[in-house]
């Protein structure tokens, strides 16, 4: 259990790997080539980061013929969420997060 969570936090503690997850969140099931197109990283770097994300189970691979597709697997994140966020806090937190997002979007638009 602890080792699993360590791997998740280690994987998340890097801007490039978070960018990779953002890419998959935007469009799930991408090949290595597709991921490289949208990221300012070498193919080798993307491969290395993907392996770490796979090890942490944040990315799962599905083979379609000879194509290797990468999927964002949010289950480990759900476990982190479930561990510290109480069952009655969810809606209030969502409201706060929506408020923050709304205010910040507004500010960006005005500037």
């Amino acid at each position, binding site marked *: 259990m602890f080792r*699993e969570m360590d791997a998740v936090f280690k994987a998340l503690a890097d801007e490039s790997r978070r960018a990779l997850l953002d890419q998959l969140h935007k469009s799930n*099931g991408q090949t290595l080539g597709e991921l490289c197109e949208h990221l300012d990283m070498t193919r080798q770097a993307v491969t290395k980061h993907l392996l770490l994300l796979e090890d942490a189970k944040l990315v*799962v691979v*599905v083979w379609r013929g000879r194509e290797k597709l990468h*999927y964002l697997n949010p*289950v480990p*994140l*759900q*476990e982190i969420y*479930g561990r510290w966020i109480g069952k009655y806090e969810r809606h209030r937190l969502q409201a706060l997060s929506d408020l923050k997002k709304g205010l910040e979007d507004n500010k960006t638009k005005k500037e």
Partner: protein
Amino acid sequence: MQKPKFVYTTYIRSTPKKTWDAICKPEFTRQYWGEMTNVSDWKKGSKWEHHNPEHEVWVTGKVIESIPTKRLVLTWADPDDLADKSRVTFEIEAMEDMTCLTVTHGSFTAGSTMVKKVSGGWPRVLSSLKTFLETGKGLNIFCK
């Protein structure tokens, strides 16, 4: 093969048999799947249904493939809109003292409203299933 829309994986400290039963047996599902149950004889070609505690049908479909403790493929449709059909695959694999469960949901029809309905749900269900099998108690997944 069409590209699946969602793929979810969880590693559970349990056996493939217990994991299979946790998906297929109502007495188990209701303990971690927000009191919902999956009802079927789980034979190829049979009907299956996802019920709420009042026995109302929330999801319905057919069993396309059924290999107990290994693989279960279902069609997944809204009972009020049977044309909004998709496909769910459960794959169970033993890995030393762990069991790897992968759920794939895909083959959605164009404009399916099911995509939105299930996208936040699967991680919650799987995380609760893992906790249930490892500790005997599921999570309260649908509380507001």
